[in-house]
């Protein structure tokens, strides 16, 4: 048996992950700043003005990336929750709770930018479109997860209860999405289709992708920062914290 190149299990312990996270944070923070600068430069100066929507469309660079991240972070949270329940590792639960506020922030940002975009384009702050509605519900699911975790005092129980909730949520998200979509098509009221958007220019696509990467790096930075705080909070009484971390 060859020894594996990297022993992944080594970093499943908070004591070894804490310094690793500390080393990774500056890199991801730098990547965030760099990518966001390039992405914003493209979205404000390089991308051409849209023929139909004018300059107002530029908010979409933030909006689309934020929506992607809010959904993706929920899946990552569910992944760590599954790890937490199946392997009973402490760090997985901490990761899940470290990701939740960032995900909720992105869900909120996507709703906010969406309504700011919707007012000039559709003439309404809010329409009951399937995507908007399910994004709102996703935001509620994040809030529920955080509320449940903060209501339980015992951190181990909080982790596991939150893990069950996020797994139940992740199964329900597609069901909710399709039911809302069907509900929306049944009520053919003031339906504004977002799917019939005109094909995008190449530079717009690049701007969006780079913004998405910037948000990705931002999420990792924030999650690592937060998980370090959680580790310190929970392991306060342990020997290694006193010895190494609080120097």
């Amino acid at each position, binding site marked *: 048996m060859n020894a594996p190149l990297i022993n992944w299990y080594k970093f499943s312990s908070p004591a070894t992950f804490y310094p690793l996270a500390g080393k990774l944070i500056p890199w991801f923070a730098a990547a965030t700043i760099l990518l966001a600068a390039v992405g914003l430069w493209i979205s404000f100066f390089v991308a051409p003005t849209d023929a139909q929507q004018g300059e107002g469309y530029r908010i979409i660079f933030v909006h689309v990336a934020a929506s992607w991240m809010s959904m993706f972070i929920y899946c990552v949270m569910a992944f760590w929750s599954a790890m937490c329940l199946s392997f009973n590792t402490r760090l997985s639960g901490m990761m899940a709770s470290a990701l939740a506020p960032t995900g909720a922030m992105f869900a909120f940002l996507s709703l906010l930018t969406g309504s700011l975009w919707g007012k000039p384009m559709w003439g309404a702050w809010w329409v009951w479109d399937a995507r908007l509605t399910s994004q709102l519900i996703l935001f509620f699911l994040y809030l*529920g997860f955080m509320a*449940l975790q903060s*209501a339980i005092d015992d951190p181990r129980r909080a982790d596991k209860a939150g893990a*069950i*909730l996020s797994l*139940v949520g992740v199964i329900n998200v597609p069901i*909710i999405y399709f*039911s809302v979509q069907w509900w929306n098509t049944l009520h053919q009221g003031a339906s504004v289709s977002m799917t019939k958007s005109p094909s995008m220019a190449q530079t717009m696509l690049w701007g969006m992708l780079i913004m998405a990467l910037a948000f990705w790096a931002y999420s990792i930075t924030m999650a690592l920062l937060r998980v370090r705080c959680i580790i310190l909070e929970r392991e306060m009484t342990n020997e290694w914290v006193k010895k190494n971390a609080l120097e």
Partner: protein
Amino acid sequence: MSAFFVPFKQSVQRDLLLAARHKTELITALFFFVIVVNLLPLGVGPDPELLRKIAPGILWIGALLATLLGLQRMFAPDHADGTLEQMALSPQSFTVLVAGKITAHWLVAGVPVVLMAPLLGLQFDLSARSLWVLTLSFLLGRPVLSLIGSVGAALTLGVRGGGVLLSLLILPLYIPALIFGAGAVEADLAGLSIEGHMSLLAALAVLSAFFGPWVTTFALRIALE
């Protein structure tokens, strides 16, 4: 088979007996449903056209809220006096006992709502056919509410501010049942086929009946740790 049915039956019987000894709880939740549904016309005006249009939504939302009201009591009293722990330790399958408790909750809190729904539907001037559809939608959909709700009740067991928290956790998960339940009645009012809605509602019921007790048991074990 008796390993399943005997403890299941006993669990249901026990909870029904307990409910029969505390009739007020049962009646309070039912009257909450009636009052919420009756307050809405007072809020939006007595126009029969409008009321007929919003009746399915109002009745379903009333039922969701009434379900939330009784959910916390599903496990809390047994948790408080230690019965739940004994159930978890007993040689019988804990999941079966929990399934019994959920069934009893549905019988106690759900069936009265199903029976009351057509009566309230009459107040909204629904046709006889629509009343049947309404009852059928509750018959299929109300167990879903109990089953999903039991997961939330187990997760918030003994937690600070559990009642409010429970509604925050559970209401977003009730959305599909609400859409298809109220949608079936609306489709009938609009003269469309109700088959699609009913099939999906039945699918939700089967899915939650399969996973609900299992996930609830898991959550209860965490709460009892």
